[in-house]
């Protein structure tokens, strides 16, 4: 395909610039045909819901639908209701705290594991550890909940069995407010420790090997090499991922919390997403739930756009 800009004369003899593009469009019509189902799908399942957020400014009822339901009075009624409710600080606090814990306890162990894998000289062992540690990533949250019951249940869990055998009292890991966030963070760590290490490992193997050789010749210890070569070598990747994760901080892990939580732990475990689900689809308060969802989407949007802007400085952009 030649990409030169050709100025062509159309039949009437006038010089036209635009027809070139249209000709190209016509030539490539098959491509647009391919894209058509995808464009329609995005319109229906992504853009119509964006339009649907207007029900957060309306008194939505089922018979009138999104379009004909009357406007709320005042239009910000449901936002006001949310901001003034005691849920506001609780939900925002839980969402941000759980996200933040997951960020710290998700990234650090993965970075350490990547370094350990890199330092491992036994290739067979490296391969085995990689295979085994990536696997939990592919188990569903339901399965991981089941595994957690097997280990942490107050009556039948293995850990509590060990505790009681050692003469201590059983700890209600799955049922207490004190332990709930640790349960979320811990189970996510188990699931994604190895999976998260993949990208750091790739970054480490991208480091110029002559740097390590030169350091070895100079008699640097391996700890020193990790500190002065490996870590600086993956610094950009770490910062990039950190920025991206901060961009997604409003997502504290909807499915996971939904599977693990129950009314007793709402004060520490209820996040925006789960509250929206209950308020909207269980209590049928569509407008209020949509308003809270919109609040979350807007903050998320600002954070993601900001994060991408920042990330561009480190890596020339994600897209």
């Amino acid at each position, binding site marked *: *395909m030649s990409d030169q800009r050709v100025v062509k004369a159309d039949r009437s003899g006038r010089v036209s610039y635009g027809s070139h593009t249209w000709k*190209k469009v016509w030539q*490539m019509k098959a*491509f647009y045909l391919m*894209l058509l*189902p*995808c*464009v329609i*799908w*995005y319109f*229906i*399942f*992504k853009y*119509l*819901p*964006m*339009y*649907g*957020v207007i*029900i957060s400014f309306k008194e939505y009822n089922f018979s009138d639908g*999104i379009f004909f339901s009357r406007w709320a009075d005042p239009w910000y009624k449901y936002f006001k209701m949310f901001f003034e409710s005691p849920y506001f600080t609780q939900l925002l606090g839980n969402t941000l705290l759980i996200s933040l814990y997951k960020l710290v306890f998700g990234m650090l162990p993965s970075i350490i594991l990547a370094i350990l*894998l890199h*330092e491992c000289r*036994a290739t067979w*062992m490296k391969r*085995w550890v990689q295979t*085994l*540690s990536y*696997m*939990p990533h*592919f*188990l*569903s*949250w*339901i*399965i991981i*909940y089941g*595994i957690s*019951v*097997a*280990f942490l249940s107050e*009556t*039948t869990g*293995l850990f509590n*069995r060990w505790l009681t055998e050692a003469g201590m009292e059983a700890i209600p890991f799955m049922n207490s407010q004190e332990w709930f966030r640790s349960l979320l963070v811990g189970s996510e760590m188990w699931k994604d420790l*190895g*999976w998260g290490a993949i990208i750091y490992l790739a970054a480490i193997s991208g480091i110029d090997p002559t740097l390590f050789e030169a350091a070895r010749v100079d008699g640097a210890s391996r700890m020193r090499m990790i500190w002065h070569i490996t870590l600086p070598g993956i610094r950009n990747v770490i910062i990039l991922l950190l920025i991206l994760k901060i961009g997604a901080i409003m997502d504290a892990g*909807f*499915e996971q919390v*939904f599977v693990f939580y129950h009314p007793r732990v709402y004060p520490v475990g209820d996040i925006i997403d789960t509250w*929206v*689900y209950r308020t*909207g689809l269980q209590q049928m308060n*569509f407008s209020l739930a949509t308003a809270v*969802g919109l609040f979350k*989407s*807007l903050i*998320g*949007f600002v954070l993601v756009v900001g994060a991408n802007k920042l990330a561009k400085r480190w890596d020339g952009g*994600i897209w």
Partner: protein
Amino acid sequence: MVKGKSDKLFDMVVYLLLTLVAVVAIFPIMYVVSMSLTPYSEVIKNGGFVIIPKNLSFEAYIRIFEDPALLRSMSVTVFVTVVGTAINLLLTTLAAYPLSRKGLPGRSGLLLYIVITMMFSGGLIPTYLIVQSLNLLDTVWALIVPGAIATFNVLVMKSFFESLPEEIFESAKIDGAREFRILWKIVLPLSVPSVMTVGLFYMVGHWNSFFSAVLYITDTNLHPLQVIIRNMLLMTQNNELQAEVTVPTAAMQMAAVVTASLPIIMVYPFIQKHFTKGMLLGAVKG
């Protein structure tokens, strides 16, 4: 080069920690499997806890499969996984291929149209209302159609296509081949590994998915496997009943957990490298 003493110590620490990671990853799964296979008599003898059973019993599995709901839910999940993945791949390929052609007029606009949805979404409730107004509620299609395209996977596949050498398309053009044929006869055969990677991500997603069923399905006949497993796990243990049965509830629960995760655990070692590759491409370019 002579290995120093501290160097050997360092190696030991590395091996030790890595072994620990491997054990932590695999032990919970092994324990769950052994719980599901331990005969009840052995459980009683050991006060309820057996890590490696002396005898194996498949009674817990037989018991859970007596419940017709489990088999029914498996057929729902298999259907959604097979048909859903086929639709996913079709639509994702048809979206990614044109978007990978750099000369396509309007390409950046179309790309933006797709990428924006990763940054802003209408949220749970409006999406639910759309699915409702399309009359998809309580149909198996509610588990397939609303998730028919994952933007992330479109971007991954697009960058796969972009990495193919340009000459392929040019020579095909000269032969007068049509675009659909180029895609089907030339591009797809060359991208089997990448299509597989994306397909596997979709497949695992369908197999593991339960939330779309929680949202859109109230008819218990249409509940997928994960929802049934969840119900089994949430079943409160009735101790009076348990005294009479020969299989403890815990063993049945764990048998259910193993049943739902077995396909993935068995297939996983063979496809691991595809996942790793996809993850890296997605992370770098997606």
